[in-house]
Every structure is written in structure tokens, then in C-alpha cells.
């Protein structure tokens, strides 16, 4: 059910569907891609970014919204925090209870750390993370015609050759064993009757290596890992994000200060190893874009690790998923999984014409859609003035047989049906949406966090909070994989590290030094970070809010 004006455009889509069915536009040549990106990708707008003024990656260029958090003062004055009382002691503290953090906890346990000595501190609930929302799949080169070498090429080509090779190596070489581990835990991957994984392409892949569990892939992985954490009895503290890291007198990380969102109390956590797995920055709404990300994706880990000396890399690069919902208004910006295109739905303009191959790498695909809407004026305009292009979803059942959408895209089907749109019958309207933090804090292949002087002892990181794995553009199915590969590596190495670790006297000198630097750069004391949660209350309400309780 679409408004009349939009229905007119749908008629054009329907008219030439048959004729388009097995015809696709050519994939773009390297030079064509470059030109398209340069002119239309939001990342290439210089006014949306700036050099950061402080810290070890001073002068690095990042989106303004990230710079605002980097150039911000701590939530609490370090002198006000009493480190003499330790509230929790752990061998391994994991900050973040999403895919990477939960995986890290399990591997710390497998490698000898007792469950009672592992602590997951997480901002929302265990599993409230982008992992839960990852629909399309997870890549692994496990088919006969595929190899980790081809996977490697896809990753670095898609990432514009800016990736850190040692991390890509781990990503592609460890992928099959991750899927195997999931299989052993009982993750229900889509398989044919003889056990062969049902795999499809993602944008920019040269082999069909996208493994999935319907279009609930991330949810299925996440709920199994969480169930396992509960079976083992690993401690989880929910609604308690970390607001600062702690150091000891040898300059090693010795835990974190976490904050109970419900009682406003802080806790001091002393830990022999700390793993940051806080995810990405979608809720910063870079350049005002809507986002696919979960409520807590505010880049807190980048902020606190940076104060402790972690290098930032590729933070200038933001992933806009080509296909966020553009209609109906209630769900604008939510993800329409790439799998919709993998299964054959073509992107079409308001006249029902093809304008780009459906499976270019994400940044290229997104740029082509933006160009179609704003460069060529061929977008479909919604009643609220938003522009979008069609994804011709009815093609899927025509190509693969009736029932395919319900069976393999159940989540998408359900989401649109809730708003009276039947994607089996009518196409769906999409526009790029803020999706992923391509860069982040730099790690080595042991998932140890790096400073300009080498490894920051006692600090590990995994998942979207890190940079280097995906270069300047991540491919579909490599983020779930990233969380699992590097979550595992972080868990294993943290378990090794804690064996001989003695923690000295805890302090927050690094935070005090950071404050000095901010003052020296004459940065006003009006911004505070980490953000913790976005605030969506109406301005009308906030303008009359008073703080008396």
C-alpha cells in the first residue's frame, strides 16, 4: 500500500520486470568507481570532517561528530573518583556484551580463565548490539571453488587496499573454523539436506560465500553465544557502561570505571586484562544520516581508549549502507539487508530503469543511489519529501520460486508487512543509511591495542571499535566475521596475558594529562564524553526541563 503518486512509479517498474529479469548492468571499471565515489559518496565531502587537535593521533581527519567526542572532557573529574575502594576484581574484564565481547568471554574461558574471574560489563543488555541486527550473513571461504586467498582479495579490494594485511589474513584464514565452532554450539545455519551450506553473493564478493540463518543471522549467532555464556556462568553486569579506563603505575591498563545507569553510581573494576568490544558509532548520526545501528552505538570505546593512548586509524571512513528504508516514515533508516539484492532484487529509479549493478561494493552502490536521486533527479519522492529508489523485491519469488521471500527473508517480510507493504507483491523504497564504523582503534594480529610506542599492555580490542580489518570500506558479511575472529583472538590472548600479570597501584593520570592537553588547545569545557546514549527527546520538552531530583 503506497500513496498514489508512488503507485504510478511502481507501474513503470512492473511494466518492464519481465524484460529485466535476466539482464543486469555491467559492473563498473575501477576508474568509473573512483569518479562516482569522489563526486557522490558522503565521505568525500571535506566540510563534514576536521583534524583532531589532541591525543596521539592529533591531526588525523575524522567526521565532525567524532571530533566532537574526542575533543571533549571526561564525564567525571578523575580527582573525584575514589580508586581506593575496588568494587569488582576480574582476571578478564570485557567492555561490551555484543558479538565480539561475548565471543571473547567464551574463549577466555576455553583458555583457562574461570567463569567467576571473567566479567562482561555492558551498556544495555547482553546482546543489545549491532551483531543482533546483522541480517544478511557471515563470510567464510569454505566451498570447493573458493579459498581464503580469494576472500583476502575481496576484502582488500573492497577496502580500497587501505586494510592492515596481518588483520585481513586472520579474518580470512580463521573464518572457516569460526563457522565450525558455531556449528558445534548449535547455530542453525541454512543448509541443504546433505549439510552443504547454502551460500549467496554479497556486494563485492567473487564467490558465493555468504552463510546465513535466514535473515536473522546475527540474532541466531548472538542468542546462541549468550545462552552459552549463561550456561557457563560468566558474570555479566548490564546497564553499566565503562566511562574510563584505569592504568597502573607501570602504565599498563588495570581495569575500568563503570557506571550504573540506573543508580548513577560508579564502580571501580580492577582487571588483569581488559578487552574493549564496544562496537561502532551509528548513533552519532554522522552528517545527519539516519542509522541502522542499535541504541547504544555511540563510539564510547574509541573515546576512552584514545585517552589511554590508542592510535586511531581509518576513522575518516564511514559506511553508508546502500539500502536503508526510505518509506514508510516509521522505519526510515532501518536496514534492508543486502541479501535482498543477493537474491535478485534490482535497484531501479522512478522510471523503473536499472542504473547500477545490484552487487557493487557498498560505498559504490550507495554513491550510485545518491547520484540517481540527487544528481539525475530520478528518485521517487515520498510524502515527507524523502527520496529513494526501488528495490524490485517481487523478482525474488519469480527467480527462486514462490515462498522464497517468506522463507529466506522472514525478518524483512515481517517488517514491511507490519506497515502494510507486501514485498512479495510490490517493490520497496530505499536510500543509503549510516551503517558502520569502518575505522577505529588500531590493533595487531593478537588483538592488542597499539599506541605510538607499541602495545598498550593489558588492553585488547575486537569488533567494530577497531580499525584496519576493513580498510576504507567493509564488505557485507565481514563484520559478523570480524566480531567472532577477533573476539576469539582477544579472548585467547587475554587469557594468556593474565597468567603472569600483577597489577600495580591504580591511577587515572592519563585522563588528567588528556584534560591538560584539551586545556592547552583552548577547547572549551562544554562538551563531555563518552556519550553513552543519544537523546531523542523533543526540543520542546528539553527547553523546559529542569534538573531538581
Amino acid at each position, binding site marked *: 500500500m503506497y500513496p498514489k503518486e508512488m503507485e504510478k512509479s511502481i507501474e513503470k517498474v512492473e511494466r518492464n520486470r519481465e524484460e529485466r529479469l535476466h539482464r543486469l548492468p555491467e559492473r563498473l571499471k575501477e576508474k568509473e568507481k573512483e569518479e562516482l565515489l569522489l563526486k557522490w559518496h558522503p565521505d568525500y565531502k571535506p566540510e563534514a570532517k576536521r583534524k583532531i587537535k589532541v591525543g596521539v593521533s592529533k591531526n588525523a581527519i575524522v567526521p565532525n561528530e567524532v571530533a566532537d567526542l574526542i575533543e571533549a572532557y571526561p564525564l567525571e573529574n578523575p580527582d573525584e573518583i575514589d580508586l581506593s575502594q575496588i568494587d569488582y576484581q576480574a582476571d578478564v574484564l570485557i567492555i561490551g556484551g555484543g558479538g565480539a565481547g561475548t565471543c571473547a568471554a567464551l574463549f577466555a574461558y576455553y583458555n583457562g580463565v574461570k567463569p567467576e574471574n571473567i566479567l562482561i560489563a555492558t551498556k544495555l543488555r547482553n546482546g*543489545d548490539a549491532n551483531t543482533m541486527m546483522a541480517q544478511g550473513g557471515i563470510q567464510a571461504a569454505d566451498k570447493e571453488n573458493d579459498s581464503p586467498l580469494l576472500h583476502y582479495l575481496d576484502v582488500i579490494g573492497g577496502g580500497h587496499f587501505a586494510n592492515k594485511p596481518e588483520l585481513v589474513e586472520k579474518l580470512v584464514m580463521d573464518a572457516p573454523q569460526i563457522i565450525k565452532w558455531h556449528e558445534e554450539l548449535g547455530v542453525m545455519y541454512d543448509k541443504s539436506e546433505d549439510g552443504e551450506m547454502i551460500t549467496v553473493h554479497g556486494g563485492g564478493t567473487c564467490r558465493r560465500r555468504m552463510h546465513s540463518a535466514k535473515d536473522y543471522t546475527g540474532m541466531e549467532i548472538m542468542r546462541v553465544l549468550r545462552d552459552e555464556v549463561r550456561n557457563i556462568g560468566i558474570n555479566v553486569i548490564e546497564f553499566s557502561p565503562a566511562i574510563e579506563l584505569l592504568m597502573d603505575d607501570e602504565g599498563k591498563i588495570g581495569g575500568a570505571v563503570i557506571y550504573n545507569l540506573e543508580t548513577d553510581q560508579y564502580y571501580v573494576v580492577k582487571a588483569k586484562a581488559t578487552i574493549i568490544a564496544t562496537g561502532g558509532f551509528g548513533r552519532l548520526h554522522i552528517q545527519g544520516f539516519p542509522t541502522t545501528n542499535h541504541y547504544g552505538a555511540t563510539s564510547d570505546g574509541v573515546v576512552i581508549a584514545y585517552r589511554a593512548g590508542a592510535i586511531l586509524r581509518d576513522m575518516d571512513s564511514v559506511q553508508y549502507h546502500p539500502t536503508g528504508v526510505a518509506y514508510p516514515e516509521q522505519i526510515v533508516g532501518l536496514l534492508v539487508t543486502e541479501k535482498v539484492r543477493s537474491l535478485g532484487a534490482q535497484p531501479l529509479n522512478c522510471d523503473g530503469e536499472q542504473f547500477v549493478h545490484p552487487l557493487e561494493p557498498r560505498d559504490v552502490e550507495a554513491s550510485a543511489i545518491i547520484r540517481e536521486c540527487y544528481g539525475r533527479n530520478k528518485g521517487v519522492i515520498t510524502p515527507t519529501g524523502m527520496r529513494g529508489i526501488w528495490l524490485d523485491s517481487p523478482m525474488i519469488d519469480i527467480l527462486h520460486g514462490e515462498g522464497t521471500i517468506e522463507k529466506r527473508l522472514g525478518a524483512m517480510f*515481517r517488517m514491511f508487512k507490519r506497515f502494510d507493504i507486501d514485498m512479495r507483491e510490490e517493490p520497496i523504497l530505499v536510500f543509503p543509511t549510516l551503517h558502520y564504523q569502518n575505522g577505529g582503534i588500531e590493533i595487531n594480529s593478537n588483538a592488542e591495542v597499539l599506541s605510538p610506542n607499541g602495545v598498550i599492555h593489558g588492553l585488547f580490542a575486537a569488533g567494530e571499535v577497531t580499525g584496519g580489518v576493513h580498510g576504507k570500506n567493509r564488505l557485507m558479511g565481514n563484520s559478523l566475521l570480524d566480531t567472532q575472529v577477533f573476539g576469539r583472538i582477544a579472548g585467547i590472548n587475554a587469557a594468556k596475558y593474565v597468567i603472569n600479570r600483577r597489577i600495580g597501584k591504580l591511577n587515572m593520570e592519563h585522563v588528567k594529562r588528556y584534560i591538560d592537553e584539551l586545556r592547552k588547545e583552548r577547547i572549551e569545557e562544554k562538551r563531555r564524553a563518552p556519550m553513552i546514549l543519544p537523546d531523542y527527546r523533543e526540543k520542546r520538552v528539553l527547553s523546559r526541563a529542569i534538573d531538581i531530583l
Partner: protein
Amino acid sequence: MEEVRIYIMGKEYKVPAGLTIMKAMEYAGYRYIRGSGCRAGFCGACATIYRKEGDYKLYADLACQKTVEDGMHLVQLPFSPANKAIYDIERVKADDKTILSFYPEIARCVSCNTCTKACPQELEVMDYIQASLRGDIKKTAELSFDCIQCGLCAIRCPAEIVHYHVAQLARRIYGKYVAPKSKHLEKRVREIEEGKYAKEIRELMNKSLEELRKMYNERDIEPGD
């Protein structure tokens, strides 16, 4: 702007028509700590129950996926207390008694179908509980697959069953023991362990940017399906 009246835990607010419950509550001035997760229908954090004026029924849905209606009286259910069975997945048996032994309360199901009516995913919840009672692991796993574990079924159930934990156990047993193993996966894992790609990947890592570009641009692409 067309407005509707909603009652958040009994207090009236006027909000623009067409918003989801979640956005309407934020519009009214509420800031979430609990009760908001993925905001996209995947995490089950925003279970909400409501009644409509002049209607005796109690409805349940997700705040992030349900549009407000005029006269809606609502409250969120940010947490549902539920006991989960603890098990070692390596040791459980894939037989027809397993689920019942971990969750004997499923035998208390009176087939009232309240769970099914409460499910915001519109799953056949009662049917999968009945399947699990019969020891049909496959059916329980398949019928429950789209479960987002919001807890609405469990909180409404007169037999006090925790459906979503029952289903989780069934799916894990199915995925681990019943579903056929992937042979190509096992083979590839073994090949990597035996070092099949170790040398080649090193060579690839040491290639110049130019060589890599060439290889990338010239790689053959498997046709789609």
C-alpha cells in the same frame, strides 16, 4: 499535524499520528535506559502491552515496530524474570525426553494459545510448545526460529512456561545434533590447519599495491544464483 492521544502508564500525552510507540514516548519527553535496544524489531527489548478504549482485550507488541493509535493505554515491559535451564550442550542428548527433562513445566500447557496471541512476531508459540512436549525437536526449532526472546509469551502464560528458553534449547540441539554436518566446511578447516594456504597467503600479503590491484580487478566472479 494530526495528533493522537496516548496514555503512558496512565498519563495523557498528545503526539503526532504515525509515530511508533517508541518514538512517541521520546516525543513526549521520555528518555530510555531500559526498553530500547536495536529499535528495529530484532532484540526484544521493547515489549509493550496496551489496551484500547472501549475494548476489553490486552494487546502486546514491540514499541519500535508498532504505530501509536488514538486512545492507546500502554506500559512497557523492560524485563521478564525467567529461569533458564543450565546445561552442557556437549552432553545433552538429542532424544524426545531431553526438553521435557530440562523444562518439565511444558507438561502444564493447557493449550490456551495465550502465548501465540501475545507474540509480536506472530509465531505459532503454543504449537512449538506442544511439539517440544512430543519431543519433536525439529519442529520446535523451526517454528520458533524467528523468536526475538522479548518475554511476552512467558509473562502471559497461565502455566508459567518460559517458552523462549525452551525454544533456545531445542534450536541448539537441532543445530548441533540433528541438522546434517557440513562436510566441505570440515574439509576446509582441516586444510587450513594443515597449512595448505599458509605460504600463498604470505605471498599475497607481500605483493605490491599494483600487483594486488591487478589481481583484484582481473579476478573471475562466480555467477549469481
